């Protein structure tokens, strides 16, 4: 079994959809459509995952062990057939690693004196 750090390294950089799904599941378990809504809300409507993109990512993330389906979750108001997903400990590890990678990138850019342009809106 290769150690976890190596495995994480092979997964980085994460596709944006994957990273956003990890973030959406960071605070609570959600079903698919809720993930789409959360991502859309957090990005101010900039990223709106389609159903196909979402479930293709979910399928791969389940296989990679980043997230897992929540077994027997029943919220009274929800349709009970809905499938909920949660972040696995490995998934949070990977999300943190991706954050570190992004931070480092930004640090490198700043060290070079590159500053983001002021928001034009």
């Amino acid at each position, binding site marked *: 079994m290769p150690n976890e750090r190596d495995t994480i390294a092979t997964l980085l950089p994460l596709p944006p959809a994957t990273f956003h799904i990890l973030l959406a599941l960071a605070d609570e378990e959600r079903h698919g459509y809720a993930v789409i809504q959360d991502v859309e809300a957090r990005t101010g409507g900039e990223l709106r995952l389609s*159903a196909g993109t979402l479930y293709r990512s979910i399928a*791969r993330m389940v296989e990679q062990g980043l997230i897992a389906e929540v077994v027997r979750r029943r919220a009274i108001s929800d349709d009970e057939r*809905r499938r909920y997903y949660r972040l696995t400990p490995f998934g949070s590890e990977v999300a943190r690693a991706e954050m570190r990678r992004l931070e480092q990138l930004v640090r490198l850019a700043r060290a070079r004196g590159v500053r983001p342009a002021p928001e034009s809106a």
Partner: protein
Amino acid sequence: MRLYRALLHLYPRGFREEYRDELLRAHAALVQDLRGPFAHVRRTVAALSDVIPNALAVHADILRQDLLFASRSLRRTPGFAVTAVLVVALGVGVNTAMFSLADFVFMRPLPYREPERLVKLWQQTPAYSRNESSPANVRDWREQTHSFDGMGVYTMRSQNLVGSGEPRELQAALASPEMFSVLGVPALVGRTFTAHDLAEGPCVVLGEGLWKARFGADARVVGTSIRLGGVAHTVVGVMPGTFQFPYPTVEAWSSLVLREENYEDRDDTYLEVIARLKPGITPKRALEDLDAVSARLATQYPATNKDLSVLMVGLHGIPQRSQLLVLALCGAALCILLLSCANLASLFLARGAYRAHELAVRSALGAGRERLVRQLVTESLAVALLGGLVGVVAAAVLLPLLSLLVPSSLPVAGQATLDLRALVIALGLTLLTGFAFGLAPALSAGRTSAMGALRSDARSGGGRTQRLRAALVVVEVASSVVLLVTSGLLIRAVWRIQAVSPGFVADHVLAVRTALPFSDYGITAKRVQYYDRVLESVRAVSGVKSAAFATGLPMSMRGGIWGVKVGGEGPAKKRENAVSLRFVTPGFFATLGVPIQRGRDVTTSDGPRALPVAVVSEAFVRQHWPGLDPIGRHFTLADSPRTVVGVVGDVRVRGLEWPSEPQVYLPCGQVPDSSLIGYTPKELVVRFEPPMTVDALVPLVRRSVATADPQQPISKVRLLTQVVADETAPRVTQLRLLGALTALALLIAGLGIHGLLSFTVSMRARELGIRRALGAQAGDIVGMIVREGSVLVLIGLALGVAIGLAIGRGMGALLADVHPTDPLTLGAAAVLCLLTAAIGFLRPVLNAARVDPLIALRAE
């Protein structure tokens, strides 16, 4: 939403079943706020742009995983992987190369305008199907038929090119203007000649090669005059290098002028005829047309045209023997492909059986059947593709070598190239095999209950697979036996041909051509003077035993057929009384080692005013004066009487594989002045003895010729042994190839038999163990395995021999009288096959004998 639901089918089944409801629900929620006039369109776009890229991505993900898995699993079993890839490579490589060659020979359109309408016409007699035609007959065909858009004639004639550099002999064709218009290829520079040009005087069209080499590719050469065969010819144009008619060796085409006297003798046949069918006229119609003319000519000129018909063949007209050889090679290639597929099948079957357990475990762990099938198929396709790749590389290497087999006399253009269709077919077949047999275990893994498979572990796989394996052994044995029988027959044929005595002693004879220009040497006496000077000088060389000039070399000049009239018979009939006519200088028979049986050689005193004499071959005497003394008897050739002064041994003029006409030799001094241009002696033959060598002799001969006439080039320097070897060379090459394929086939079949038997034995280890435990001796076990295997091998052998015999009968023309049921060949094939099978049996049988009852049972 209905569209979206339908589009979901683009996803792999497993994914679709897992996420269908979720996808539908999420998508419905996402598109519900799409309203307005174009809502429908926008929904459609949303559905399409969501499903199509994502479905592709999911498929790609799975493929990547499967390939990863396949490469891992193949690396775990490198023996299987390498064998399977090689087997596929072999089948694909050999077949692609062979069929590319066949396509090149048979199918490739000729580089002429509408080549499918081009035909070649031959005079056909009961004795010979392909005779050249006489000018008079061609003229009648042309004038009296209505099926052709044109009819052109040509004849090969080498001519000396003098001026602008060293004198050199050109391979040229004498052609009528219609030859160019029938073929319909425009000139590269200038134009081709017309009837109008001919009226102005002799003209010539140069080949691109000659134009570049000799005239520096200067377009201004058109319109100038060059000396060909001692006569000034006006250059009217240059043909492109792709125009290689009738042979790739032709360097120029000069105008063929037929005068009224050329039309007199209908037995004087030397023209090759090509014609273009009118649009819409079928070859059958055209032939009926020609037959009507032939019938008319037969009544009109019974002396020459009785029994004469026309043979019409497509211009591609490849001789039956070459066709058969290429077909034989293709057949061999197909056998190899069959063997490859059978081996691949058995490899996959064996692997499948070994993996039944693994598959059952994975299925029990929840892998869907579709997933397993998909993965196994990916694996077998990967093997097939990898093998195909190696095979294509092999074919690319092999093809140029194979192309050497195509006789250079065929009117095919350029070089054979890899044929994509052949590649696709061969690869398709192996993919199909890999697919079918790679799939089988997956399907059965899905079908049988996982628990059942787990419990019983991997074993023989049931009666159906057992029968399939038996069938595979039979197929492998049969196809290798077919190859053994057919190549064996061909080997015997070559042996038989090589054992035929040519009628002369070829060792230590040098042959050189010095074609004398007719313009300068039209007078026979002048030519004889030249011969004498050259021969005197050559004979003076120490190490030269004898030397002579002759019209042509046996097996090199095969034509020159005339009719003779003997005694009180009717008019000379070329067909019944055909002889092969040669003019020779004294010493020809001694030089070639043709024994003089009776009488004398021709001599220098047999001149134009002396008694017209002839030396004839034994076959001539047998035919016309059986049991009588021929010396002093007369016959008539071309209306002039000849007295026989000598009898010599028969020579295989037409080659080792064909019957030859009796030979008539006339003294070189008795060629009529300015006539019989094709028959004037031009081949100088020199018999030498060691320590003299060819390398030392050639410059001396060259000097002798130059001393006699400095304008005179020499060409075609070769040994007579080469001429004889060339007779069988194509056959020997083709045989080597066929032999190599057969050896390959045997190897594959041996491996296949070995693999299948080992597999059977290991699968049956438990059964054999129980038998041992119950008291069976090792000998009994061995006997049982051998018996079971032998039955299959014998069935395959019988089947293979039967097919081989049928093919042998079809190859009759190639077999030089070797009977297809030749016992030696069949016996040898059977022995080789059984030997191969025995070697294949060896290890599995030993393994079976060594089965330890305890270990076999403990494996439970």
